[in-house]
């Protein structure tokens, strides 16, 4: 999908990925998160430093908000879910089943999951989908706090989060043989 791409991310820095739909932002994030190997090249950050959040949040409809967060905190060896609940103002929802939440509330819970991973590098794929203005502000606040604590974030998004972040456009790096690869992929599916 992408070719000849290179960038670095310092602690406390956020990088916004831009590019038209289908330009390879998700592929890039999944590769960096270690879900698929790159065809060539090198990822210097360790996989155990990266927390990844995709379009789907990995929430269980039959578990409550607090249970969902506690599960992910346990998986990542963390204890504290209160910070995450407070950061995304989930307190009134904590005993609701995740299946009964609205799309925006689910998204907030999915993003709160990033806080309970305790990992320094956040990879977020279209994090603001179905968030309202207030929730986007909460999210931007959480990112700022994370950066302030020495974390880093790589965000694929189209809206302006009001962050002091560099913008990185992936469009120029599209591989020349992209069309052929895409076609064979689709045939396979």
């Amino acid at each position, binding site marked *: 999908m992408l070719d000849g791409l290179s960038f670095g991310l310092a602690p406390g820095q956020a990088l916004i990925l831009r590019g038209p739909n289908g330009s390879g932002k998700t592929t890039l994030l999944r590769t960096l998160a*270690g879900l*698929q190997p790159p065809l060539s090249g090198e990822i210097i950050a360790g996989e155990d430093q990266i927390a990844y959040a995709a379009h789907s949040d990995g929430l269980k409809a039959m578990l409550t908000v607090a249970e969902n967060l506690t599960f992910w905190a346990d998986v990542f060896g963390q204890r504290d879910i209160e910070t995450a609940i407070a950061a995304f103002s989930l307190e009134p929802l904590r005993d609701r089943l995740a299946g009964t939440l609205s799309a925006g509330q689910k998204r907030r819970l999915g993003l709160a999951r990033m806080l309970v991973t305790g990992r320094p590098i956040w990879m977020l794929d279209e994090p603001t989908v179905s968030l309202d203005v207030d929730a986007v502000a909460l999210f931007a606040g959480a990112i700022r706090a994370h950066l302030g604590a020495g974390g880093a974030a790589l965000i694929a998004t189209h809206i302006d989060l009001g962050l002091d972040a560099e913008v990185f456009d992936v469009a120029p790096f599209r591989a020349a043989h992209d069309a052929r690869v895409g076609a064979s992929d689709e045939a396979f599916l």
Partner: protein
Amino acid sequence: MKALLRRDLLLAMRAGGGFGLGLAFFLIVTVLVPFGVGPQSELLSRIAPGILWIGALLACLLSLDRLLALDWEDGTLDLLATSPLPLEAALSIKALAHWITTGLPLVLAAPVFGVLLSLPDAGYVWLVISLALGTPALSVIGTFGAALTVGVKRGGLLMSLLVLPLYVPTLIFGAEVARRGAEGMQTTTPLLMLAGITAGVIAIMPFASAAALRVNLR
């Protein structure tokens, strides 16, 4: 790891179905067989060990569909793959949770269903022993099948075709233990084979499952 097991069991309880589905299917099979083959108790008691084993195996197969598909749909598998938990361990835990929700109830219920098929008295102990030894293998092999077909839309049929041949050795030796036990014969040889198969797949299959799942997550 404990968190994952606890979550899977909790989900199985809350979603209903988890515990009941396999058991209900097992009950249906054992209730229907006497209607199908007729009420001669001599014939029934001869085929009872085999029928009970086939019923347990199909009941296990029935619930494999949901083993990974639900976690795939809501993105949990992606997130688990990027978590500190090795995928091999995560899949072993999921197989264990599947066994607790499907295999274990079958083991416990089998003696009751044996009555329906007039299983000989000597057979009950061996039926429970063989199922207790064999059903973990069914769950572990099933997890491999689920991992292979997790991305396929309506992959249930494909998974059944892939998994059934792998189930055959377990079925042969499991049913043989129960049959020999029921007829009062020596059970050591098939019992050891059955235990060997189960120990072997528990040791090897999680690696195969994790490798298959990694390919599917790409």
